[in-house]
C-alpha cells in the first residue's frame, strides 16, 4: 500500500509538536518518565517491532493532539515517543513496487528491523526530546579498550589484518575523547616486529608487507605520536617498497604480486604525504618510464578510471560503484591536490553527487554502500566521509581572516548536501549496542565490532562538524610535496536543529586521514623537519 505523504509543512509541525510534548511532559508523560511508563505498560518483555502503519497512525494521533488539549494526561509511552520523531523516520517510503525479489525482500526486512529503534520503541532506552537515545560513550570506550586486549582463538581469521584493530581502536577512542597515551609504548613494541626490512608492514610478524596494514599502522603511530613512535618507521625502505608496488598504469598493487586496487591508491598516497617521502621513482621500479617518472605519475588518472556509469567509484576499473571506494577515490585526489581543483578536473561531479546522495534511505536514514543494497553503519564514514570533501569542493577554499577566527567561505556555502539529522538518528538509534557489551554495529541485528565502532563514530563526527578547506597560506608553511591535505579546519556544525545532546558530540577526525585533528599535521611536520631520510 502507499502512504499519504505530508509535505514540507509537516516538518515545521514536527518542531511545534515537540513543544506540545514538552508541555505535556509537565503533566507526567515526559520522555524522562517514559521509561517508567514503558515498564508499567510492557513489563520487561521485548517489544515486537511495530508495523509502520501503527507508527504512522501514532504520529497522526499526536498531530491531532496539538490542536485539541489532551484528554488523557498519561498517554501511552509508545505514542509519546513516536510523536517526537518526524514521520519520515517512522513510516514506509511513499513509493514501493509490488514486484517482490530477494533485494526488495531483505530491504523490507531491514526497514522492519530498524523502525522500532527509530521510533523510540527500544525497550529500556531513554530518549531525549527528539526521540534520540544518548551516546553510550563509556560502554563504547570499554568495548574498544577490550578490543586491544588478548583475543581468543577464533580471531585467527584476523591474523593478517590485526594492525587494522590498532587503528580502529585508537581512532575510535580518540573520537570518544579518551586519552590514548597509555598505548604509545605497547603500540611501539607491537608494531616493531611487524615491519619488514624490505619496507612496509605486514599483517603480523613474518608476513609480507601490505598497504592495508601499513596504512593502519602508520595512522596508529600518528595518533599516539612522539619521536620514538614515528622514528621506528623505516622511511627509506618504505619509499623503495612503494616504488616496487607502483604500476605502469599509474595505480598501486597492495603487496608485491598482489592485486591493484583503489585501496592501494589511497593508502599509498596517505603514506607518501604523511611520511613526507620523496616522490621520485627509483630506476628499478616496475613503473619507471624514464626521467621525471614519480610515484604519483598517472595516479589521479587511474583513480578517474574507477568512476562508473552510475557516478560512484569501483574498487578497480570496470567494477560496480561502492561506497568504500568512493571515499578512497576522493581522499586520494585530496592528497594529490586541492579538492576544488582536483575533483572537478578528474571526475564527473554531478553524477557522483547524485549517486552518493542516493545512498541515504528512508526511513532507515543511514547509508547503503551500493544501489539496491542495505544500509550499514560503516558507510556512515565511507559514504558520510565523502560529504565534507565534496562540500569543500563545491564551496571552494575558505579564508582564515584572523588567527583563531572561523574560516569564511569565499562564496556562499552549499551547506549540507545530505541529511545530517538522518545519519545521526541511524547511528544513535540503530547502530549502538546499548547493552553492557557496548560498541557500534552494522544494523540492529548485527553484533558490534571495532571496525564498525570506528567508522560509525567517524560518521557521527563528520555529521556533527563542518569542515573548511582553506586557502594556500597554510600550504606555504608546510611546504614540500602533497601539502594540500594540511589545509583543513573545522567547527561544530550549527546549520539545523540539533537532535542530539551536546554531551554526545564526539571529537573531530581529519576528513582525508581519518585520525584526530592535528595528528596528521604534527606527523607531517615532524618528518618534514628531518629533511631527507
Amino acid at each position: 500500500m502507499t502512504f499519504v505523504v505530508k509535505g514540507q509543512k509537516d516538518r515545521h509541525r514536527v518542531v511545534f509538536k515537540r513543544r506540545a510534548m514538552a508541555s505535556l511532559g509537565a503533566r507526567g508523560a515526559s520522555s524522562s518518565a517514559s521509561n517508567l511508563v514503558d515498564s508499567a505498560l510492557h513489563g520487561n518483555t521485548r517489544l515486537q517491532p511495530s508495523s509502520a502503519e501503527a507508527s504512522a497512525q501514532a504520529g497522526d494521533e499526536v498531530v491531532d493532539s496539538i490542536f485539541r488539549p489532551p484528554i488523557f494526561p498519561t498517554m501511552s509511552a509508545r505514542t509519546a515517543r513516536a510523536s517526537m520523531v518526524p514521520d519520515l523516520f517512522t513510516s514506509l517510503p511513499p513509493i514501493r513496487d509490488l514486484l517482490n525479489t530477494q533485494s526488495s525482500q531483505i530491504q523490507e526486512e531491514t526497514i522492519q528491523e530498524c523502525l522500532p529503534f527509530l521510533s523510540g520503541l527500544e525497550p529500556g532506552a531513554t530518549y531525549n526530546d527528539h526521540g534520540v537515545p544518548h551516546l553510550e560513550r563509556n560502554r563504547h570506550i570499554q568495548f574498544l579498550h577490550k578490543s586491544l586486549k588478548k583475543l581468543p582463538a577464533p580471531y585467527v581469521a584476523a591474523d593478517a589484518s590485526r594492525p587494522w584493530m590498532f587503528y580502529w581502536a585508537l581512532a575510535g577512542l580518540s573520537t570518544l575523547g579518551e586519552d590514548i597515551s597509555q598505548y604509545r609504548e605497547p603500540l611501539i613494541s607491537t608494531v616493531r616486529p611487524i615491519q619488514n626490512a624490505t619496507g612496509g608492514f605486514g599483517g603480523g610478524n613474518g608476513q609480507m608487507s601490505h598497504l592495508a596494514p601499513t596504512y593502519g599502522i602508520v595512522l596508529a603511530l600518528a595518533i599516539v605520536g612522539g619521536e620514538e613512535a614515528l622514528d621506528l618507521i623505516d622511511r627509506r625502505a618504505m619509499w623503495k617498497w612503494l616504488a616496487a608496488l607502483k604500476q605502469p598504469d599509474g595505480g598501486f598493487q597492495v603487496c608485491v604480486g598482489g592485486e591493484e586496487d583503489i585501496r592501494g591508491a589511497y593508502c599509498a598516497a596517505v603514506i607518501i604525504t604523511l611520511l613526507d617521502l620523496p616522490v621520485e621513482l627509483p630506476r628499478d621500479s616496475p613503473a619507471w618510464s624514464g626521467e621525471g617518472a614519480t610515484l604519483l605519475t598517472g595516479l589521479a588518472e587511474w583513480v578517474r578510471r574507477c568512476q562508473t556509469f552510475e557516478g560512484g567509484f569501483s574498487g578497480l576499473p570496470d567494477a560496480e560503484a561502492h561506497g568504500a571506494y568512493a571515499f578512497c577515490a576522493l581522499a586520494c585526489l585530496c592528497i594529490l591536490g586541492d579538492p576544488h581543483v582536483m575533483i572537478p578536473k578528474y571526475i564527473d561531479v554531478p553524477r557522483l553527487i547524485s549517486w552518493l546522495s542516493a545512498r541515504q534511505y528512508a526511513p532507515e536514514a543511514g547509508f547503503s554502500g551500493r544501489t539496491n543494497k542495505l544500509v550499514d553503519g560503516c558507510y556512515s564514514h565511507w559514504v558520510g566521509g565523502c560529504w565534507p570533501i565534496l562540500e569543500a569542493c563545491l564551496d571552494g577554499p575558505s579564508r582564515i581572516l584572523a588567527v583563531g577566527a572561523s574560516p569564511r567561505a569565499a562564496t556562499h556555502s552549499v551547506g549540507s548536501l545530505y541529511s545530517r539529522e538522518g545519519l545521526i538518528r541511524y547511528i544513535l538509534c540503530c547502530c549502538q549496542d546499548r547493552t553492557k557489551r557496548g560498541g557500534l554495529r552494522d544494523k540492529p541485528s548485527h553484533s558490534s565490532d571495532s571496525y564498525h565502532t570506528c567508522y560509525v563514530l567517524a560518521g557521527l563526527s563528520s555529521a556533527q562538524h563542518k569542515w573548511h578547506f582553506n586557502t594556500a597560506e597554510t600550504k606555504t608553511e608546510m611546504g614540500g610535496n602533497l601539502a594540500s591535505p594540511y589545509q583543513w579546519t573545522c567547527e561544530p556544525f550549527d546549520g539545523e536543529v540539533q537532535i542530539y545532546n551536546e554531551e554526545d558530540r564526539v571529537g573531530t577526525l581529519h576528513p582525508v586521514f581519518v585520525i584526530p585533528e592535528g595528528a596528521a599535521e604534527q606527523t607531517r611536520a615532524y618528518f618534514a623537519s628531518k629533511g631527507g631520510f
Partner: protein
Amino acid sequence: MGKYEGDPEWDDVVPIPQDDGEGALAQIAYTDEYAEAMGYLRAVMAAKEHSERVLDLTEHIISMNAAHYTVWLYRASTIFALNADVEQELSWVNDVALDNQKNYQIWHHRQLLVDHLYPSISSDPNAIRKFAESEVDFMTQMFDEDAKNYHVWSYRQYLVRKLNLFTEAELKSIETLLRIDVRNNSAWSHRFYVVFSDPKYSTPGSHATEYDPKIPDEIIDREIEFSKAATFEAPQNQSPWNYLRGVLRKGGRKLSSQECFAGEFVKIPENGEEDIRSSHALDFLADVWAEEGKVEKADEALRLLGDKYDRIRKNYWDWRRGTLKEEGITKGLAKVELAH
C-alpha cells in the same frame, strides 16, 4: 607433540616462532595447531623452499585461516615453481571459495592461476570455451549464495577481459540473473561493462561516464529498450534508471529523447493531485526539463522530490534547485548579452 614436530618428513626444518613483541596489543591466542603450522611456514619462507610439502602446509593453514594473503601468495609461487597442476588447484580453490564467501585473497589467487594457465590454452578456441563455461558454472554456484558478491563480480570482469568473453552467452547469463532479481545492481554493472567495453566496437580507454562515438546506434537502441523493459517491471528500481542514463551518455544522446518514457511514471496535472510511480522518473524528468530550459517545470519536479517523494534527500534536491537557478541566470544573462 605437534603435527609437524612429530613428522619425520619435516625433521630438517626448525620452525621460527612468532615474535609478537612485548605486551603486544590485540594478541591472538592461537591454537597450538595454527601456531605450529605458522612456525613451519615462516621457516620454509625464510629458506625460499618451494616443494610439495609446502603445498600441504599452506593448504593446512588456509583451512584454519583463509584470509591470509601471505600464505596464498607463497602458495601461488610454489605452484608455479613446481609447475603443479593448475586445474587441480582451481577445483580445490572452488571448495575453499564456497566455504569463505567474503574472502578477498582467493580471487586474486585464482587470477594468478588463470594468468599462468592462459598461454597453454590461448591458441585453442575450444579449450577457452570449455574453460570459460566451467568458470561461469562455478560463479553461478557462488551467486546462488550471494548474487552481489563483489569479489566474484570483479573476477568475472577480469575473466571477460582475459578470455575475451564479450559474447552473446555472457549477456544471456546476466539476463538470467536479472530475471531472478531485476534489482541485482551488480548484474546491471557487469552488463554495462560487457556492452560498452567490447573491443569489437568501443573506443579503447573510453571512460564509463563519457560519450563514445564508436558505439553503434543499434547497440544503444538495444540497451535503451533493455533498461526500459526492466523499468516497467518495477519502476522504483533505481538500477535500470542509472543504466539508462549511462547508456544515453555513452550514446551521446539527450535525456530528453526519453521524456515520453519517463513521463509514463509521472503525471502532474495543472490542477489536482499528481500521480508519481517512480521518484527516479521524476528525477530524470527534472534533468530533461533543465536540459530543455524549462526551469520552472524542473524546479517543481525537484520540489516534489524534496517535499514528498524522496524527503531524506531534501538537501540534495534543494541544491539541484539552486544550480538550476544559477544556470537559469547564466543563460538569462547570455540572452541579455546577445540582445545587446
